[in-house]
């Protein structure tokens, strides 16, 4: 290798092709999943969509509960994100942020058991309510419970993404606003609204999609068949009726509804304002804070923390008794000595899956950013959202028809599980990286161009320092999602050696409720540790790129 003038990886092709090919791969897999079903199916009867009363009611209910869940989740998420943005320092803030990140990755069976312990008929809070206000008849089962659970799962996620947007509001504006002592309304108009406006549609679409495709939660808390989502109908068609045609038809309907929503969101173009890239958040609360506002913020955050923590506390109190037994390495058949092995097995699948999701996201974003080709940019967009709206069961079945994996027979199959988990995590990781990746102002890029900082060097000195935190968070999400996933591995079958979620279901199926509660708790602790660990990795180090534009270093906030 002679010394070349070119920076490594600086050919434009390096930015375009890997990402494009990956995007093509994702879209290809998803599309072939749906098409494999259609190809196996006899004639499609589209008319049954409106002629069949059952399907009609399922569709209406699915849209209705998702819409309601989105509205309520966002109504809670916006004030929470604002309060968290205003209060940069209070004890426990970091832990609260970690908890908010967890909601997406907690296995539903664990979370629901926690929710029931609080809001159920014998729940703590329900008993308390009955003491205080006997006339209030609170019933968890029905639309109440569905929406409550969806808000519990999605409001923290939405608030977390909105907070990231708020924190990326331009520093200069922040300082000016704080010097002028703007009132809350003006702060909102001048600072906060512009910051979240661009991500809000995406967040709304994300929450809608998650609630639209929700399945176990809706059934457990829905009360009865009146609360049925499209996913149940798909599941039923595939599992019991072997009616590939109907499954494909319903999957297409889902694709159409969620897909057009995303198309609406994306076609409006996510405007990234042209801001100077001096994005260094200060650690101080903004000026112009009155005592009343401090009180209101504290109250809001306190209630929200309780809302998140109480169900998790219930999971802890239920799981603790069995946890010591489960972790003991003694190999008595009745104690889950397999928990530690299952943990290692899970990590061996989840870490590569997380890494694959992050790398794919970066490459796809790079390919999209290189611009030029309208078609390519569209393709990358589609790849970013498709995994979210294709029902996993349809994707899995389709892939199965295509690949015929010998999954349960050999361990190589676990590589495929990791791959599918990575694809499933892609939309979330992309959502996290999108903003920071695109937020470079043209001036900086132009300067880098002039200085010849390209390819690897540009990545190393320009992107990497500012992408560390979102990258770490993306890695945590990607890994966490795979760690808690039961769907993919259950669908394809696994060798007799379980991962943590499989172990959990094995314990449940064998009546080992205490051991299962311990496994659920362990999984949550592990996820917390994981988010904590990646957060540490994402901490910026003091080595700052010394392009001659750098000024004095500002301290970075030690959170997020």
């Amino acid at each position, binding site marked *: 290798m002679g010394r070349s003038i070119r920076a490594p990886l600086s050919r434009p092709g390096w930015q375009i092709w890997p990402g494009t090919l990956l995007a093509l791969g994702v879209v290809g897999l998803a599309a072939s999943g749906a098409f494999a079903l259609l190809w196996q199916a006899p004639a499609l009867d589209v008319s049954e969509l409106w002629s069949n009363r059952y399907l009609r009611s399922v569709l209406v209910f699915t849209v209705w509960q998702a819409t309601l869940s989105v509205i309520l989740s966002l109504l809670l998420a916006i004030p929470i994100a604002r309060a968290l943005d205003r209060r940069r320092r209070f004890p426990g803030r970091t832990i609260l942020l970690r908890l908010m990140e967890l909601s997406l990755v907690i296995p539903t069976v664990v979370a629901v058991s926690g929710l*029931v312990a609080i809001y159920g008929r014998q729940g703590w809070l329900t008993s308390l309510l009955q003491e205080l206000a006997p006339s209030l008849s609170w019933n968890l089962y029905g639309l109440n419970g569905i929406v409550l659970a969806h808000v519990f799962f999605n409001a923290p996620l939405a608030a977390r993404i909105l907070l990231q947007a708020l924190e990326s509001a331009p520093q200069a504006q922040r300082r000016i606003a704080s010097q002028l002592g703007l009132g809350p309304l003006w702060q909102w108009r001048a600072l906060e609204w512009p910051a979240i406006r661009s991500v809000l549609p995406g967040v709304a679409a994300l929450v809608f999609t998650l609630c639209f495709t929700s399945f176990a939660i809706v059934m457990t808390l829905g009360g009865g068949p009146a609360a049925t989502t499209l996913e149940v109908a798909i*599941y039923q068609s595939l599992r019991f009726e072997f009616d590939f045609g109907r499954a494909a038809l319903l999957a297409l309907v889902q694709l159409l509804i969620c897909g057009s929503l995303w198309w609406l969101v994306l076609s409006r173009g996510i405007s990234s304002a042209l801001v100077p890239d001096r994005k260094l958040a200060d650690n101080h609360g903004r000026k112009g804070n009155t005592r009343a506002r401090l009180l209101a913020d504290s109250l809001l955050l306190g209630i929200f923390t309780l809302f998140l923590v109480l169900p998790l506390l219930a999971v802890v109190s239920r799981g603790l008794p069995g946890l010591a037994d489960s972790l003991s390495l003694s190999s008595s058949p009745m104690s*889950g000595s397999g928990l530690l092995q299952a943990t290692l097995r899970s990590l061996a699948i989840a870490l590569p899956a997380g890494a694959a999701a992050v790398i794919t996201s970066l490459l796809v974003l790079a390919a999209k950013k290189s611009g030029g080709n309208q078609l390519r940019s569209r393709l990358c967009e589609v790849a970013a959202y498709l995994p979210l709206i294709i029902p996993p069961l349809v994707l899995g079945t389709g892939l199965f028809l295509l690949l015929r994996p010998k999954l349960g027979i050999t361990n190589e199959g676990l590589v495929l599980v990791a791959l599918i988990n990575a694809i499933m995590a892609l939309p979330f990781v992309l959502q996290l990286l999108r903003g920071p990746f695109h937020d470079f102002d043209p001036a900086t890029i132009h300067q880098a161009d002039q200085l010849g900082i390209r390819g690897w060097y540009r990545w190393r000195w320009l992107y990497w320092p500012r992408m560390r935190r979102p990258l770490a968070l993306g890695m945590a999400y990607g890994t966490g999602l795979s760690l808690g996933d039961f769907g993919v591995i*259950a669908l394809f079958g696994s060798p007799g050696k379980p991962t943590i979620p499989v172990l959990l279901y094995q314990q449940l199926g064998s009546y080992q409720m205490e051991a299962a509660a311990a496994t659920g708790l362990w999984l949550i602790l592990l996820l917390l540790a994981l988010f904590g660990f990646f957060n540490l990795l994402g901490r910026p180090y003091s080595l700052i790129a010394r392009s001659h534009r750098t000024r004095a270093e500002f301290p970075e906030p030690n959170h997020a």
Partner: protein
Amino acid sequence: MLIRTACLLLVTLLPLTVTAQPSQELNVYTHPSFAAEWGPGPGIKQAFEAQCDCRIHYVVLDSGGDILQRLRLEGEESMADVVLGLDTGTMDTARKTGLLAPHQVDLSALELPISWSDNLFVPYDWGYFSFVYDTEQLPEPPQSFDELINAPDDLKIIIQDPRTSTPGLGLLLWMRSVYGEEAPEKWQKLKDKILTTTKSWSDGYFSLFMNNEAPMILSYSTSPAYHMAIDKTDRYQAARFDEGHYLQVEVAALVGSSAHKELGREFLQFILTKDFQRHIPLKNVMYPAIDLGPELPEVFSRLIEPAKTLYFEPATVAENRKAWLDEWLDAMTR
């Protein structure tokens, strides 16, 4: 760096088992709780491998429905030699695939509440669907379906969805066998007592019943055996209904495309021996398919004895399932 570690992990954690190769491998598709460490799977594997020159390999799928689904998807190229975990509700659908081969097993050792002479399916255990109740919350449980249906609406029960769960489908068949054409209106009467309808038995039992959400849940008459023998508690018991209880038989079958049919048949014959069956009562929490004699755990003598065994032929189930399901949906969403 991290990725490198992960790859190392992957390589070190997933080694291919390198041992002295026995002459044949037997792939058995089954469900999670069977193959679990404390399930019957490991003991059965050990016992069978001691008498054959072979190795059993369990492939774990989500449930009986998934085993059948997987079989259909794989068709003639299936890796499975034996499927274990189908039941009388899904049997006939499996038969119609034409992917299974006759077992040629001598069924004379079978001890079931019904006579059994199927040439494709070998029963390995059985149980009755029943409502399990919490004696602390419900000292006086209903003694019959009629009593349950006419009970005040504050008696809450948890059931599973027949569209997604085996016991859920069992309840549908149970109601149908008790009430026949009147089943839909009885469902409407029962409706207000149903606290919720869960996707799977696990969801209901773990998230709700064990959280004391309702005093009764649809399960098996054998469930209390586990609580009595292993948890050492008499708190959870099954309610005996005068109309009788619906039977579920779990079955295994030989896959037609298997390259090891002889070995597979050996295994199916092995199912009807004590070396297999002794693992069933407390590890699968069902009744053994043969008479275990004194080896049957003592708690099994303390379970309810149904007055009458209710049962539809698998063909009848396959024929009517969709219609009955639609009736149920209609009754429940009115």
